[in-house]
């Protein structure tokens, strides 16, 4: 084991927090408990105490940083610009290095997910294919309603209920490695993600379509590994570094004006490869260049600027749920709304507490089911109050959580879940008189 992660962290980062308390009202876990330990400044104080060697990290410390959603709402609230994300990641790495949350069950879950599936795109796609057929044959419902599974392990039971429906065709089956528009002006890479690739390959296709529609040649390597954000958020720094290097090798950076991501959670991690690979002689320079070229799709479109669609969608009210890592992490805040407002036929309705986490937060819905469900129910309650017909979001975790929450709420009006780029792509298709797909 190398030096403890929190001692390696630049001390100025923890020192930056002058504990004014402005972050407290923004923090979902503080709002639940009103305890300082469960607040951003409390957690920073604990991280600082460990860095100072005043506190020996134990299972309570581990649980505290596991309880944190990592939603980064505190970064938006912080006038002093404290970078909570690196503190949070270092603390989780410290916990992981010391094996503080290690039980046979958690080791198994971590191994199967972080080490196996999310490091090997082919295995992940195989799992996706199996899932597709399981859903197709309705085996999932049999398993989910089986009392045996529920008795054997409530967590497995919950997990089964959360496995997303998988698309029939994955991204590489829908997007060619290079697609060229009629009048190319820019050349961009497209990141297809891991979960996004399986469960939301349609959104990837829509992303490629809106890029093509706006003069971008789209370069999409067919087999892309996970970006490593799951690993970095869960203390697996080495795996995160390995995955970052693989992605860096995959894209011809010199030929590209930008590399486009359409998943909020991934984007925030993808922008910080330079920090992740700072000590890597071979990759540090390339990682810096990469960070400069990463663009969230909404950010890229608005900066171009994109062409507003001329065809109207059937009239509907849409609410926008910002992914935490897009809004608080990447600070892409107004662009998704601008895209939605540009589409004729859509009325964008305000959402109460829009910038509060929906409780998805990576694997949080598995590790903290009660708190995750509470946040999900709050979100659904606010969504239902808007009278919206659909909710647009731009992160696979949020998308799945909103679907799960809306389905659980049942009754009343049905609210569909979609993405801003999907609505934009659909409006462009209607210009050409294409068949509506929504």
């Amino acid at each position, binding site marked *: 084991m190398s030096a403890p992660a929190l001692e390696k962290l630049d001390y100025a980062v923890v*020192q*930056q927090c*002058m504990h*004014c*308390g402005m972050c407290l009202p923004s923090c979902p876990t503080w709002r639940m408990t009103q305890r300082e*330990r469960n607040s951003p400044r409390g957690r920073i104080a*604990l991280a600082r105490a460990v860095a100072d060697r005043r*506190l020996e990290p134990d299972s309570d410390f581990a649980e505290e940083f596991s309880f944190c959603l990592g939603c980064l709402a505190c970064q938006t609230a912080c*006038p002093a610009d404290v970078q909570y994300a690196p503190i949070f990641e270092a603390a989780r790495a410290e916990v992981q290095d010391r094996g503080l949350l290690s039980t046979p069950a958690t080791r198994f879950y971590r191994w199967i997910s972080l080490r196996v599936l999310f490091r090997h795109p082919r295995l992940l796609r195989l799992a996706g294919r199996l899932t597709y057929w399981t859903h197709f044959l309705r085996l999932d419902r049999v398993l989910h309603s089986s009392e045996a599974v529920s008795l054997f392990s409530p967590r497995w039971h919950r997990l089964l209920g959360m496995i997303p429906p998988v698309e029939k065709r994955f991204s590489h089956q829908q997007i060619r490695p290079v697609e060229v528009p009629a009048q190319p002006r820019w050349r961009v890479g497209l990141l297809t993600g891991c979960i996004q690739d399986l469960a939301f390959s349609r959104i990837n296709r829509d992303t490629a379509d809106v890029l093509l529609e706006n003069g971008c040649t789209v370069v999409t390597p067919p087999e892309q590994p996970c970006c490593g954000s799951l690993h970095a958020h869960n203390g697996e720094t080495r795996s995160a570094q390995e995955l970052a290097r693989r992605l860096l090798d995959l894209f011809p950076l010199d030929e590209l004006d930008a590399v486009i991501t359409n998943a909020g959670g991934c984007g925030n991690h993808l922008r910080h490869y330079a920090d992740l690979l700072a000590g890597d002689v071979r990759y540090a320079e390339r990682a810096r260049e990469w960070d400069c070229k990463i663009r969230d799709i909404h950010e890229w479109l608005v900066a171009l600027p994109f062409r507003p669609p001329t065809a109207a969608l059937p009239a509907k009210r849409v609410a926008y749920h910002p992914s935490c890592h897009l809004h608080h992490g990447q600070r892409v805040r107004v662009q998704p709304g601008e895209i939605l407002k540009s589409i004729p036929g859509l009325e964008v309705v305000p959402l109460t507490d829009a910038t509060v986490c929906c409780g998805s937060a990576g694997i949080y819905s598995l590790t903290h089911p009660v708190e995750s469900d509470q946040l999900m129910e709050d979100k659904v309650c606010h969504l239902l109050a808007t009278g919206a017909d659909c909710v647009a979001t731009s992160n696979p975790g949020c998308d799945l959580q909103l679907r799960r929450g809306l389905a659980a709420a049942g009754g009343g009006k049905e609210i569909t879940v979609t993405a801003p780029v999907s609505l934009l792509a659909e409006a462009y298709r209607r210009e050409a008189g294409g068949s509506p797909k929504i």
Partner: protein
Amino acid sequence: MASSRFSPGSALHTELAAVAGADQVLSKEIDLIPYAFDGTAALRQDPGCVVFPASAEEVSAIVRIAARERIPVVCRGSGTGLSGGSVPSPGSLVLGLQRLNRILETDPRNLTMHVETGVITAAIDEEAALHGLFYPPDPGSIRISTIGGNVAENSGGLRGLKYGVTRDYVMGLDVVLADGERVFLGNKCVKDAAGYSLKDLFIGSEGTLGIITSILLRLLPRPRARRTLVATFPEIEGGALTVSDIIAARIIPCTLEFLDRTTMECVEAFAAVGFPRDAGSLLLMETDGEPEVVEREAAAMAAIALQRGALEVRQAETEEEAIRLAQARRSAFAALARVRPTTILEDVTVPRSELAAMVRFIADTAVRHRLLIATFGHMGDGNLHPTILTDETDAEEMERVEQALSDIVDQTIALGGTITGEHGVGLAKKPYLPRQLGDPGMRLLRQVRLALDPHGILNPGKIF
């Protein structure tokens, strides 16, 4: 961690848990470390335990235990204080009062509101607004600070010039005394000449005389109109002279806030409200009241600013923009923490006629001691916040910081000012209090404290 007298299983822990509930008593190291500080830089002390009572009765029961055992008791709301008033004393029992968070009564016929001590300040004005009423004090931390903390520190805010400070809105207090006894001081009467004004003794007492558990507040009718202006100047003096001219023109705006260049840059970096990056100083001006008067005063203030060489005077177009501007200003102190690791905020206040001299002195002090000092503050009421941007781990620089602070305090007192306008003395300004009050003043303070807290268990070590 070494076990303490508060550890689970101890008689004391059991007794406290019996009062507040086992889950409302914290004594593990990991739970205590996050209660070692408030919003003040470079102060840290772990408490012995933290207890969260849910009612005045529970507060009283806990204080009786503490009095019997001679345990120091430190009150805490949201921990946003700026003088170290709620930083724990060694081995102390911290009373976390945020669970006393009910609004007990709003009385529109008497223009009062009765609230528990842990209610968030902003929630009070929001509740008042539902009745067309107004609670004016608005400290920078309004969205998270508790009213009990505001009363204990006699907090101010952006509207002090026209509306005064927290003290001006307190009509009554429910207090738990050092022996656990409860007393209500004050009433809903506008006039009251019965005996000493005891409630006033507890306002600004910083938790050293008693524990405030509920407060009867005075409200005002809500102003019908409000205008917010931002004027920028090429240098510092333009802003200061505009303030003097506005007061001389017999205008009492509700807000006249001053930001120097460094503060402006930091606030803009955080809030992105469109402050220009090339100006030397900025005034945020607000007038409220009847619509015709407000329009007239806003026009007059804009004209004065332009006469004094303002580069630009901008008027907020919407209520949302006005709120965003005021909120941006409230972030000034924390936003300054972007520049250096440690942010030491001062709170000196001088008679308004001496403002220009004080601002000049602060600038000279920064040069003399080779320090970076940003200044912002409530120009309209003479309350300045010179903020030293430094690094607590640099011992040599911290020595210069101490000298600069000492110089600023001496000059403040020489100009007839006070070492703290709205943050309280706490620990941070404790060394300077004797210079301002002198021996007779300090003696009086001691006599009062001894009379009310003979065993010295209430927030010991604070103020003096």
